[in-house]
């Protein structure tokens, strides 16, 4: 019965993944004949590519920021938007709205907002006398990565709100009623009912956000192209540049294998940390 699904999966996912592994052991510029180099690409990545290590570091910092803030904001908003009233439904639509925008448009809009000389953000800081906070957001190696992380959180929080709302609505209402009878405050209700009951949903949100953050490409590409001086370069933008600007397809494949391993490790770590038990025997 499962054969068609296995066949489709093998053709569309397994075969390209194995093919990618094979490319990762080759030196190939896309034009000349590929040369088999064994594990040279991986060895070079591990021992002689400071830039890639810096980029992995960038991506881990980016992911941490996005996962923490995106999860926190989406849970916070979801708790306020739980009831199905006309107002909350409208607000959910408004929060979800950025998700339907094209990522390049979002990148362009935020590039204008961040413009150091006339952008809305710096203009706002200057208007309230906080001139010291009017920074060169995308043009300074110290801030560019964080500026993009903020955009990423703004862009995807609405999507996670919807997942949380669906998850939180599964929590039986009588638990809250009983807690109210016992005189529990809103915070105690959240701590003792909402948070533990929402843990499986949180696991989904965190895993999804993590993967999304490691796959982030379009915002980076449209806002900074990884610059200045690779300060906002992420693993996927690096893979893209290695493959399509430097024409090192084998090396880029090796980078993508590393990406898979990093994502697998981080996801495993998250599951361990959140102690998710799906009841699998």
């Amino acid at each position, binding site marked *: 019965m499962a054969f068609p699904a296995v066949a489709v999966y093998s053709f569309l996912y397994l075969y390209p993944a194995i093919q990618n592994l094979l490319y990762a052991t080759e030196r190939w510029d896309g034009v000349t004949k590929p040369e088999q180099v064994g594990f040279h690409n991986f060895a070079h990545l591990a021992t002689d*590519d400071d830039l890639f290590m810096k980029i992995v570091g960038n991506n881990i910092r980016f992911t941490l920021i996005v996962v923490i803030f995106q999860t926190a904001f989406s849970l916070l908003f979801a708790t306020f938007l739980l009831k199905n009233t006309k107002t909350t439904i409208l607000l959910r639509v408004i929060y979800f709205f950025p998700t339907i925008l094209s990522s390049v448009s979002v990148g362009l809009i935020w590039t204008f907002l961040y413009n150091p000389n006339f952008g809305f953000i710096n203009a706002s800081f200057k208007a309230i006398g906080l001139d010291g906070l009017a920074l*060169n957001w995308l*043009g300074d190696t110290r801030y560019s990565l964080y500026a993009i992380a903020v955009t990423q959180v703004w862009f995807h929080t609405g999507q996670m709100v919807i997942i949380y709302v669906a998850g939180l609505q599964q929590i039986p209402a009588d638990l809250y009623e009983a807690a109210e009878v016992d005189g529990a405050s809103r915070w105690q209700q959240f701590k003792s009912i909402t948070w533990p009951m929402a843990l499986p949903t949180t696991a989904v949100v965190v895993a999804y956000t993590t993967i999304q953050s490691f796959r982030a490409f379009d915002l980076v590409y449209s806002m900074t192209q990884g610059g200045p001086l690779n300060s906002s370069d992420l693993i996927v933008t690096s893979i893209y540049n290695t493959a399509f600007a*430097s024409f090192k397809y084998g090396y880029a494949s090796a980078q993508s294998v590393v990406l898979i391993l990093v994502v697998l490790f981080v996801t495993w770590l998250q599951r361990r940390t959140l102690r998710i038990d799906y009841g699998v025997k």
Partner: protein
Amino acid sequence: MTTKGMKSLSARRLGAVATIAFALVATSITTGFAADPSFGKACTTEGVSTGTSSTSLICSVNSAGKLTWTNVRLGQSTGSPVAALKASPGTIEFHHFRPEDKAVFASIIAKFEAANPGTHVNQVIMSSNDYTNLGYAKISVNPKAAVFVTVRGGQFDQFYNGGMMRDISSDRFVRQNVIQSALTPATVGGKIYGVPYQSLFNDPLYNTEMFAAHKWTVPTNWTQLLSFCKTVKAAGIIPFAWPAATRGNAGQIMNSFLMNSAPDVATLTSRIQAIDTGKADLTSDWFTAIANKYKAMNDAGCFPANVTGYNDTVAPADFANGKAAIYPTGTFGMSTVTNLNPAMKGKMKLMSMITVDEKPLYQGITNNTFILSVNKKATSRDQNIARAFISFLTTAAAAQEYAVGTSQHVSIINVNYSANIDLLNTSDIMGKKLLLAPRFLFNNVGTVRNPLEDALIAIGGGADVTKTLADTSKTIKQSLGA
């Protein structure tokens, strides 16, 4: 009722018109056109050009600093231009990266199709970034892509090495319709594999009206340039609207820094190749000197505040709106500027950006935006349609439509630029000693040129020269070793 005075005025006007008309007809340079009232025996407006034939006259400043007509050889053909080839019925694809040219090409294609019933050319357009990164992969497996474009240097080499380009040396339209000196970038081993079509000049544009109003003169050496920046900044105007946050256009200025950085072009080429192949470091004296000049420009206030966050959306807008004196990109930036502010039409000229104090070797940069080639892997019928299409593009009428419609010069002879004042005004650069844009001698774009330009951008934004070059040099070496 008409008064005597009014009659007299009308008569005067008539007389003046007749006199001007006679002067225009009588002058020896009216073979081109008579659209500009400054045409006459004396050349009074720098940049004015007859611009119509293979031996055009351009009004430019001579070594003595006086305006004089300079004979500029735009073409060198062994015979008269030939008509376009005839195409057999069929459909081909034309792949390029110029979405801004879509409408003009569509109009030209319509005329080509009308002249060749049953023949169709479909434009397939990618963004320049996508074309750089994915163009080869897509076109090399698509035999219907019978006409495609490449950029001089690495991309041309990639398609050539992939056996994608048909030799078109023997086609008469190549020999007789194209400015022969412009064919160099498409020539390998004496054979021609494409027609470099759009000619551009990667030199800074300056606002002539602003210069005149402030009585500024165009700096002619490095010391003057730095001093000019201080003067302009003091007037509350951005001297150079350098779009440092957009690598593609920020890198154009590097051409000017490179052009006079070596005693001759061979030395320059070998130095660039040494860096491109990892044989030399960015920390070499030669490259450090170039990087130091970026820093000097930043120190002199040449660039706007927070220049590393200043992108190519803001820069042309500042130039178009009179907030900046110079937009250091090239002729290809003119249409953006006039789209942003139509009043800028006719107020732009190109400056030679001289970054040395001694006598410069070169006065400007030229390049071809793209080279049109015939796909050798297309069927022979499609290749013939492709040749016919390219030959059609090399006819003066089509080239003129393209030039005027896109506000760009072309490498085709007998093109009349008089319908576009900005093209006319910038034609004088053709009378100067130009170097083919050396930036494109870096073949390793992703591995070498991009990080190198990022380093120069950072230095232009105030980063430490020594550390930035050392770090970038290490990155480049490691990347080349991968």
